[in-house]
């Protein structure tokens, strides 16, 4: 592994930003740190960069422990959310700055700047100043400045969050391609789970300073370890229902879903993804609810139904049509539901 965090903790006053974090990132891997704002993901990244010092634990880059090493000796490059371009330097000077500081000769430096500018498609803009560039171009300058000196690790702190939706999608693809091309270990922080799912080789999900689960996008989506991961990953997010598990059946006052597990378990929470539910007119159904809203997104319809105080989101195809406030029936795919302990939020597994 290239980057290793061992029992790393960081406190700001009374707030524990990062709590006993253990994480290993492999050579050449694209790892995404995902979590809601304030979960400690940026603090973790800044500790790897050396912009914050860890209160406890060890941070390794390669073979060496870097806890006390100054940022500039860690051989990492960082792209900031705000881009952090030097406004008084041209694009070429911005990109060349890290090389200049390392004493790279002028001719070599110009060569490297040109090559990097080509990689991020900024050839025609080298003489401009940051204020003369669009948001996407500034983003590319920041990226170029990070890759120009071939660091061991790229650190990216929500680099796409200041771009508009369309550009963000485009830059995401570019970023993924670039990382593949350069094959440099990348740690990427985001709160956007779509970004995480699409970019990552592995996702590390954090909440309140604690690492919740690490795994491939597929595994965290299909096999969430706890209720937080289950609810955070997926859009629209997973539906939850409080009830009891009795003899393998999930039972609440208003519904009964058969054969969701084995045995009895007292208070549990049932989780089911919107695509694992279906609106039915006749035949077997599990829930009877009142239609709350119907949203057509183009390729699909997001249907929300209300049962008591609970709302359910169902992913339907684009042909679905029904009037609001109608009574509707919902069928649940019992083979694809998840069960969690009410008290701890831990996943209940049956095999």
């Amino acid at each position, binding site marked *: 592994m290239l980057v290793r965090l061992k029992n790393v903790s960081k406190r700001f006053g009374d707030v524990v930003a990062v709590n006993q974090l253990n994480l290993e990132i492999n050579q050449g891997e694209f790892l995404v740190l995902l979590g809601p704002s304030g979960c400690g993901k940026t603090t973790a990244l800044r500790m790897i960069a050396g912009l914050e010092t860890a209160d406890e634990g060890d941070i390794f880059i390669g073979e060496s422990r870097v806890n006390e090493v100054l*940022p500039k000796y860690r051989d990492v490059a960082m792209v*900031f959310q705000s881009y952090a371009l030097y*406004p008084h330097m041209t694009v070429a000077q911005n990109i060349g700055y890290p090389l200049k*500081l390392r004493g790279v000769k002028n001719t070599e430096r110009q060569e490297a700047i040109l090559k990097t500018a080509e990689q991020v498609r900024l050839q025609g803009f080298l003489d401009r100043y940051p204020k003369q560039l*669009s948001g996407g171009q500034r983003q590319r300058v920041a990226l170029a400045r990070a890759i120009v000196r071939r660091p061991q690790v790229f650190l990216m702190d929500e680099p796409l969050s200041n771009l508009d939706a369309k550009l963000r999608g485009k830059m995401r693809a570019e970023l993924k391609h670039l990382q593949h091309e350069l094959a440099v270990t990348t740690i990427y922080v985001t709160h956007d789970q779509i970004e995480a799912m699409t970019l990552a080789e592995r996702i590390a999900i954090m909440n309140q300073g604690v690492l919740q689960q690490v795994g491939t996008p597929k595994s965290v989506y299909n096999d969430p370890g706890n209720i937080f991961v289950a609810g955070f990953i997926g859009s629209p997010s997973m539906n939850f229902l409080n009830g009891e598990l009795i003899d393998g059946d999930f039972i609440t006052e208003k519904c009964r879903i058969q054969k969701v597990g084995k045995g009895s378990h007292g208070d549990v929470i049932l989780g089911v993804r919107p695509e694992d539910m279906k609106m039915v007119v006749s035949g077997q159904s599990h829930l009877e609810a009142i239609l709350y809203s119907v949203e057509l997104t183009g390729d699909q319809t997001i249907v929300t139904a209300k049962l008591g105080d609970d709302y359910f989101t169902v992913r339907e195809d684009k042909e679905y049509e029904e009037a609001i406030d109608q009574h509707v029936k919902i069928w649940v795919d019992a083979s694809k539901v998840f069960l969690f302990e009410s008290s701890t939020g831990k996943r209940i597994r049956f095999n």
Partner: protein
Amino acid sequence: MKKERSLSQILFEPKTIDAVAPVSKVVFYLILGLWTLVCLFPLYWLVVTSLKLPIHVNDGPMYLPGIDFKPSLHAWKYIFVDLGNDTLRPYLNTVLVSLASSVIAVVIGSMAGYALTRIAYRPKLGSILLFILTVILMIVAVVRFGLAWQIAVASGLALFILLLTTVGRRFRKSLHNTDIAFFMISQRILPPVAVVIPIYVLFQRFGLLDTHAALVITYVAVNLPIVVWLMRDFFDSVPVDLEESASLDGASRYRIFFTIVLPLAKPGLAATFLLVLILCWNEYLIALFLSTANAQTLPLLVAAQNATRGPQWWYMSVLIIIMVVPVVAITVVLQRFITRGLLIGAVKG
């Protein structure tokens, strides 16, 4: 369909949001023109007076040279030829002292201001009080008990360090950067008049009276709080991201300060430099005490024209004109640095 506008609408109502109605326009320009006259008239009066003979000045107001009176260069001749070196020396003194003071104050002050915005200092209140106490002890020992000052300072410092390492560990309450900044600016609460005699005695002891050094040291000390206070604000506006980025790119703290932060704080530097320069250039009171002949500055020379025969307005005018010109020139040069928007493009999209 063409909409008719009545005469009063045409005169008083603007056509679009940004436009100004014709009548308002006329009024605005009248007010602006009047104010320009008010501002420029004293300068004109200086020039006119410098061309008058004493008899013209005493004969009541005369406005137009060549019509009201016959212009004469006698005052200019007196200042430049008759006084000669006695004009040149104060002039050079002023230039030298003001420039040196402003440069030193801005360099030291901006570094201090930067440190106060980026480094969190937590000096213990107890340690500061302890230091003041030992200094008082030293003074008492020297003045009251006739102890040699070298011994007093050495043993005082030793005592302070000893106490700091033993008792000092117990101190809890500490000050913050804002307290330090406030302490600095509070040095300006005291009017300079209050301390001008101690300053005089101080420089007398050091044998520095009537030297450039005395003036420069005093001006730097007096103006440092202003520089620190102003520059702190300018550095605050430089995004920390830029500095963090530079530190990851491989820059040292000094390098970051000189290649990233200072260039971005240029408008602040220029404005602060100008302010300090003007304050030093026009300073009268401290210069009056600290200089007599060799280090005399221009304001003193101007005041000296108010002699036994009464104020010699014609000479004063010439001196004031030549005193104002360099400051105006520097302001014009520096003005292009005092622009906004230098940080555009640094962060966000």
